[in-house]
């Protein structure tokens, strides 16, 4: 239902744009802009946790988000970002200034694809250093919490861009950092990605989050 409503509204207002959603077949346009949609991020959390969101980003012809919006209908939190800043319900967001994994909150959602370390291995690495691991099933909401300053890091293990497209600007414009699971820049958000790591931008924290993923299970 959500997917259809969003898709129809975009088609009506931006008939030349491409639409790339998690539930509908990709429709190609000629404008150079692509809308990347996750109609329900965190499906498994529905009715269990107030964390499911709707994610929508407009991507330019270079694969970069121009702006993005993430809405949590349960909490009524509207996260959005333009070229300069990130907001939640109109208030500017800023990442936390915590400098150590110890005491940090790290979201770990979807499973990592091969060849990366298992979630169990990553979980152990974080908790052994005194960090606290959370899994709320909603990848975009997890990353939004990093932008909001409520958490220091979040992983996206999947290769699809449906959540990642909406959180890049949210996190970076709040002062945070985004890379793929190998610590490399994500160049396009309108096609397959190599997972994602969002952090508060503190170098030591981001580098450690990258290193945990590279540890293979024994």
């Amino acid at each position: 239902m959500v997917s259809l409503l969003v898709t129809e509204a975009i088609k009506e207002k931006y008939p030349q744009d491409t639409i790339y959603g998690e539930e509908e077949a990709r429709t190609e346009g000629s404008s150079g802009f692509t809308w990347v949609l996750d109609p329900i991020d965190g499906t498994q959390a529905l009715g269990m946790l107030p964390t499911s969101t709707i994610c929508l980003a407009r991507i330019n012809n270079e694969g970069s988000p121009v702006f993005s919006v993430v809405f949590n209908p349960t909490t009524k939190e509207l996260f959005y970002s333009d070229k300069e800043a990130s907001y939640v319900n109109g208030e500017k967001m800023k990442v936390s200034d915590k400098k150590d994994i110890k005491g940090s909150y790290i979201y770990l959602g979807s499973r990592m694809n091969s060849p990366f370390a298992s979630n169990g291995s990553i979980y152990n690495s974080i908790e052994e250093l005194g960090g606290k691991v959370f899994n709320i099933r909603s990848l975009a909401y997890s990353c939004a919490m990093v932008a909001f300053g409520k958490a220091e890091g979040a992983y996206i293990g999947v290769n699809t861009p449906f959540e990642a497209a909406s959180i890049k600007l949210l996190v970076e414009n709040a002062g945070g950092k985004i890379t793929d699971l190998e610590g490399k820049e994500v160049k396009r958000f309108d096609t397959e990605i190599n997972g994602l790591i969002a952090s508060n931008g503190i170098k030591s924290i981001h580098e450690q989050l990258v290193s945990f993923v590279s540890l293979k299970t024994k």
Partner: protein
Amino acid sequence: MKNPDLEFTKQLLLDIGSKASEALTKPYETK
């Protein structure tokens, strides 16, 4: 100056999210 495309998108998700909120927030039903 506000970005009209961003404003459209914000309003779209607010409207559709409100319509869908009952389905999205209904209590978990065991199978």
